[in-house]
């Protein structure tokens, strides 16, 4: 190893934001040709910032980047491309109305006229070389998330990238799609490309990478050869102290039907069917997991129950303790609360829906409670106390309750939101991607909180994307595919492969899919 010159090295890189925040501190990192390096770290440990300095989005305050031993300066994304560095971001940067090929050649300056035929041929060449499946003439808006991601990767390769950076690429993929991506990554590795992958999922780190580099609080901690590492060691290094990595699954407490959904059908504004005759029941003291590819109707399902989504057909009923039923159809969140239904909802879009980014912690706590009482004035004392309580209880890292929520890191934002939602002693808790973007430590805090709610007899509906977690945490798992229920299975006997298959096809629906 010592004799080999790294494809790229970073030396003593420091990056500050403002005078107080140090995102990266004296980081030195090497990546070799033909290597897949996993970059591991908690939220806010500076992974994305570090990578953004390679892709020309940020410029380091101190330190130097070397490409094949030569010092280089990367002060714009274009310069990064010229040096053969390409980054695939979490949010795709594609033009919807253009085809794959058009998106791929977009922005490349060439002599003479643009020859789309030649371009398409080169794209096909790249695809066959690495095993991508892509139709160059397909429009982006017709594509699935995984196809869009493929276009992003091919775009980077088309521009001659030798170093690829993938920022949490599997967050939006099914297990099968992830496997495909990993196969492609291995092919690229064989071809001598260097790949840096940022991910929170430990199994992926272990299965795809050659080496793991760990960042903690902006500093480089160490690296490990993947073959000699295990989940526990990597997690401990990442967090800085020893953590237990078990999701417990207590037995359901006296489960009783709480929410009954029958033949629920929902169309979006454009008239596209988002939910197609969905039927299920959610029980108290139980966690019902919802699995599915992103956009299979999970959002609409939760919002329909929460009174935020107009529905076309079907019934949603809430079952009281005494067995009486009340319909939730056609009621908005206020009316549902007025009925005495304690329903809490942790939406996917935390800062755009669950919280107000520009308001401080205390004012965000007030969102749920400000209507209480007949006075025309708001009661600011109770929300402030609640904020203090949540900060203490969930160990939220914040300068104070007067801090604006948008200034907090993702994990802390989520703790505030979940803390508020469970503080009202709900009987139903809806959560959408509760741990998306959270590091392993914060994720386990959230699992714990959800389990505690379950033990209190709350009916929990947990929409998730990590199948391993769904299988470990949930009592039952409902699998959605394109708005239809492809089955409801017992979490204790669930097999990941089978869920993955059910996510992509509805035919083998054994029960639950009520197409009468």
């Amino acid at each position, binding site marked *: 190893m010592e004799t080999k010159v790294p494809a790229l090295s970073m030396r003593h890189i420091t990056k*500050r*934001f*403002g*005078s*107080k*925040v140090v995102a990266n501190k004296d980081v030195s990192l090497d990546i070799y040709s033909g290597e897949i390096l996993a970059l591991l770290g908690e939220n806010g440990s500076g992974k994305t910032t570090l990578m953004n300095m390679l892709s020309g989005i940020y*410029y380091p305050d101190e330190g*130097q980047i070397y490409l094949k031993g030569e*010092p280089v*300066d990367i*002060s714009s994304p274009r310069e990064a491309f010229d040096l053969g560095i390409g980054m695939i971001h979490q949010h795709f940067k594609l033009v919807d109305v253009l085809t794959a090929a058009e998106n791929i050649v977009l922005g490349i300056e060439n002599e003479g006229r643009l020859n789309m035929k030649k371009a398409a041929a080169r794209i096909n060449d790249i695809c066959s070389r690495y095993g991508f499946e892509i139709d160059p003439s397909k429009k982006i808006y017709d594509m699935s998330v995984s196809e869009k991601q493929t276009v992003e990767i091919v775009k980077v390769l088309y521009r001659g990238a030798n170093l690829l950076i993938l920022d949490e690429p599997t967050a939006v993929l099914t297990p099968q799609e992830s496997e495909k991506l990993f196969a492609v990554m291995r092919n690229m590795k064989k071809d001598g490309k260097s790949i840096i992958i940022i991910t929170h999922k430990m199994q992926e780190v272990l299965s795809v990478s050659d080496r793991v580099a760990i960042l903690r609080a902006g500093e480089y901690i160490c690296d490990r050869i993947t073959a000699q590492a295990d989940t526990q060691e990597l997690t401990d290094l990442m967090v800085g102290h020893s953590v237990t990595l078990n999701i417990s699954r207590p037995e359901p407490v006296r489960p009783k039907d709480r929410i009954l959904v029958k033949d629920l059908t929902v169309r979006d504004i454009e008239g596209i069917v988002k939910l197609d005759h969905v039927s299920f029941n959610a029980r108290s003291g139980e966690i019902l997991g919802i699995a599915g590819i992103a956009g299979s109707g999970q959002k609409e399902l939760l919002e329909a129950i*929460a*009174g*935020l989504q107009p529905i076309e057909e079907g019934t949603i009923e809430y079952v009281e303790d005494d067995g009486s039923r009340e319909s939730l159809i056609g009621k*908005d*969140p*206020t*009316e549902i*609360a007025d009925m005495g239904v304690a329903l809490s*909802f942790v*939406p996917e*879009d935390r800062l*755009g*829906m*669950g*919280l*107000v*980014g*520009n*308001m401080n912690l205390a*004012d965000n706590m*007030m*969102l*749920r409670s*400000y*209507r209480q009482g007949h006075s*025309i*004035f*708001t009661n600011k004392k109770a929300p402030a106390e609640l904020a203090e309580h949540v900060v203490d209880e969930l160990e939220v890292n914040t300068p104070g309750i007067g801090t604006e929520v948008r*200034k907090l890191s993702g994990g802390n934002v989520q703790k505030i939101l979940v803390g508020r939602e469970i503080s009202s002693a709900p009987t139903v808790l809806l959560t959408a991607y509760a741990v998306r973007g959270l590091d392993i430590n914060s994720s386990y805090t959230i699992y714990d909180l959800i389990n505690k709610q379950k033990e209190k007899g709350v009916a929990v509906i947990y929409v998730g994307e990590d199948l391993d977690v769904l299988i470990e945490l949930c009592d039952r798992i409902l699998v959605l595919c394109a708005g239809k229920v492809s089955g409801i299975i017992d979490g204790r006997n669930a097999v990941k492969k089978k869920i993955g298959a059910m996510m992509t096809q509805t035919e083998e629906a054994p029960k639950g899919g009520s197409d009468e």
Partner: protein
Amino acid sequence: MNNKTPLIHITRRMDIGRPRAYAYRAAAIILAFIVCGIVTMVLTGENPLDVYSAMFTGAFGSSRKIWALLQNLAILLCVGLALAPAFRMRFWNLGGDGQVLAGCIAAAACMMFLSGALPNVLLIIVTLIAAVCAGALWGFIPAFFKAKWGTNETLFTLMMNYVAAQLASFFITSWSKDGSAKIGIINQNTQIGWFPEIGNKYMMFVIVAVILAVLMFIYMKYTKHGYEISVVGESERTARYIGIKVRKVIIRTMLISGAICGLTGFFLVSAKDHTLTTTMVGGRGFTAVIVAWLAKFNPFTMILTAFLIVFLSQGCNQITTALELNSSFGDIITGIILFFIIGSEFFINYRIHFRKSSKKEAA
């Protein structure tokens, strides 16, 4: 080594702290006056100190000028206070002019056609209610269309200004007795429907503005309505998620915004001008936008920003008459000063780093 480090780069400040923010703003104003001085000398050859003293005389030269300044400040502040809740809700109400004028029309109509029919006290009360309703109606129409069909409120409120102006000119023509397209002073001899003077003829507006400022501060900061306005302004999705009826809040807030404009119109007609002209609002609906924005919608800070604007405009008038300069010169001075004040916000929110000198690094 890093010879391609950008010469300057800009980063967002985390938190600057209040005292320093105010120090930056004060520095901006001082800097603005220095630049104005230089510009004055170069363009006109006048001694900048003369210009400043003329401005000062224009604003504070006599007790009449001081009172006129206070009254103008108060009128502008009233309109600014009316706009503040709408803007806090991110409803770009550019229709302040029209809403005030609608109030003026209604007030003038009551004073002309109901005088004699009602006892004076009752007439004044009816006039006030009519003006408030007219302003509220002018605010309600764009709000209703926005809430119901999602129309663009910026264009809608803007166009409502022209409708109000045309209506005013129509009524002036049809109400004028000699066909001169002028109404003249309404009830000049009887003073029926005139709002009673308190202290002097300027005082009334000052009192109204102070009361409004206090009420608006409490409304925005401590009431449930005020909280709903903030939530809707920050994120409509969050508002819906917690069960706020967004349409209702939009319409309610614009009713309030329009009503305060109408109230301002009432006092313009009943307490100040006692007539109706198409230009009596004088673009305050737009100037008030600057007042509200500069103050970040804080009613008490708006007193300061309104003062600044009124001081500049009155001072600049004096420059042009006293020093016999072209009237555009006053606008140049106002422009420079506003430029610096708005520009200071950039330095409060962002920090500029310069490349460290290479000698230092070598050492």
